[in-house]
């Protein structure tokens, strides 16, 4: 299927400050695509370009094959759920939802049918006569979603819609939103800086960095196989080490850290010399004794410096050659902090297939 929305070589600057640089990206029909990145990465600008609040300096925004780069927002079959919801305070819930329908030149009956259907979808029919200030944050958000969905857009744009909600409500609304997106089979473009949110909701994640597309792929790929040092850091890998040397071998790569340790990893970086090695904490196991004949795993010895209890796991900071490695140990079921304590000498081991080489 052809993409429903495409960004083709988009560049955009504000006051000579480059915000997007030659960025290309397509959104597939009925996919949940998340634009993930830190503040200043250009993700919100990209969303505003799709909505029509901004126009690209160069490049094109294409909706269902039509160049819409320079159409005003009111001519686009694209609707936005705003970060602060931007509900109209002078209108009731039902009038908020019906606001856009008046511009579609529908009959009164049809307007009512569509507005109440949209309110049903977000389960707010019973509150249709309330005003926005009489609603909770979660209810306001549902109104914002209904107000956009009622327009039957080709793509729904969501700009950090959970930012204003507390943790519990946020998780509930995330599940509702995901279920809604599945049911409607509508393309969602979702902006967030929260990597957990991105991982749990998305079909694909587009990771943005300084106005460029750093990496795009399904959540598990972004999580396990970050393609850059930035991606690895942003996806929360604390163990990223500079390499002083690396040699491709038959079944992988042998690499040496600045601090002297050598490891073997099964991945290969084509053509280029990898500059960093990254290993996720949960892929590193700890033990008091070096396991004999440990089937080719990479093993190093260090001393425990700090422990952080996270409930289902403990993060151990282990110092190896004056460099800190972080390893995670699952402690579910077992009581307390697990088997180790601070100042213990431990062995860290990880499988060669778990090492990520970065450029």
């Amino acid at each position, binding site marked *: 299927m052809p993409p429903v929305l495409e960004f083709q070589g988009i560049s955009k600057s504000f006051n000579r400050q480059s915000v997007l640089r030659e960025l290309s990206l397509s959104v597939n029909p009925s996919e949940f695509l998340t634009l993930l990145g830190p503040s200043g990465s250009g993700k919100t600008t990209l969303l505003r370009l799709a*909505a*029509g*609040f901004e126009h690209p300096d160069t490049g094109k925004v294409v909706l269902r094959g039509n160049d819409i780069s320079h159409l*005003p*927002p*009111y001519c686009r079959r694209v*609707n*936005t759920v*705003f*970060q*602060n919801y*931007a*509900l*109209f*305070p*002078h209108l009731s819930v039902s009038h908020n939802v019906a*606001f*856009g329908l008046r*511009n*579609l030149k529908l009959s009164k009956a049809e307007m009512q049918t569509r507005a109440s259907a949209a309110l049903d979808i977000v389960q707010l029919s019973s509150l249709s006569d309330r*005003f*926005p*200030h*009489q609603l909770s*944050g979660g209810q306001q958000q549902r109104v914002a979603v209904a*107000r*956009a969905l009622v*327009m039957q857009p080709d793509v729904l744009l969501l700009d950090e819609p959970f930012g204003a909600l507390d943790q519990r409500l946020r998780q509930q609304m995330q599940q509702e939103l995901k279920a809604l997106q599945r049911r409607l089979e509508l393309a969602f473009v979702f902006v967030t800086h929260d990597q957990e949110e991105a991982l749990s909701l998305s079909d694909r994640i587009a990771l943005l960095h300084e106005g460029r597309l750093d990496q795009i792929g399904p959540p598990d790929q972004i999580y396990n196989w970050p393609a850059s040092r930035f991606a690895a850091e942003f996806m929360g890998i604390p163990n990223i080490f500079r390499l002083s040397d690396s040699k491709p071998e038959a079944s992988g790569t042998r690499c040496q850290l600045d601090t002297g340790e050598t490891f073997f990893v099964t991945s290969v970086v084509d053509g280029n010399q990898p500059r960093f090695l990254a290993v996720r904490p949960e892929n590193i196991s700890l033990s008091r004794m070096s396991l004999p004949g440990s089937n080719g795993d990479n093993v190093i010895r260090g001393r425990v410096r700090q422990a952080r209890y996270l409930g289902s796991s403990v993060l151990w900071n282990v110092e190896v050659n004056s460099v800190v490695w972080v390893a995670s140990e699952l402690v579910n079921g077992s009581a307390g902090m697990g088997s180790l304590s601070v100042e213990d000498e431990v062995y860290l081991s990880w499988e060669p297939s778990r090492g990520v080489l970065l450029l």
Partner: protein
Amino acid sequence: MDMRTAPAGALPKGALQHNSRVWFLPAFAWLFLLIAVPLAFVFILSLARRNPAGGIDWVLGASNYLRALDPLYLWIYWRSLLLALATTLICLLLGFPVAHFIAQQPSAALRNLLLFLVALPFWTSFLIRTYAWILLLRTEGILNNALIALGIIQDPLPLLYNNFAILAGLVYTELPFMILPLYTALERIDRSQLEASSDLGCTAWQTFWRVLVPLSRQGIVAGVVLVFVPSVGAYLTPDLLGGAKSIMAGNLIHNQFAVVRDHPFGAAIAFVLTVVVLVLLAISYRTTREHAEPRVL
């Protein structure tokens, strides 16, 4: 109150309320002595009668009010009302775009500078500013000379001493009082609400009517009241810029006191004008209250 359980820095509630009442006293005393008392005096005076010597006979009755309903005077009230309405409408039409433009500026420094410019005329005496309009509008005034020099007209236009001059003077004087409350209301509107309106298919014009106007209604009402009330009772502007025929209610009152020396009749007209303005204020207060804009979070 148990001070040990009170959070640090919190004042005992009773003390605060007691104090705040004390601070209001000077304001109440001011209002009472300088507004309520004189108004009561004006009302009592309006019931008295002028004696032939120009003094006051304290024979109370409603005769002044009956006289105030004479068509001659009704015509003057009507003209005052129309001029004040026209002033208000023109100020609203001119003031809204200006206030919106200022509120849209992203830089706070620029917004403050523009607001400062709006308020700048207040630094000069009202009298001097009104005389400046005479220089602009009179037969050999700057405007007429410029138009003749440009060849647009042959003979000077009658710009001064008529309704046009009064209107120009009133609009000029009152415009800042429209712009400032409008700005306050427009500045509070969340920009994303205007974007949401556009996102939902509204052109700029539709957004103006469906979002901007309803959300700034409090500012519109405040501006209308602030412009209309002084305009309807204007005295100096029509006195200086208006002709003998374009007299307004304010001049009528002034004439009764200063020229004809019929203080009781002047008091009656003044009191009627005050009541009319109070009724209009009450109506506008109720409309704002009934549709009071719910503040969002």
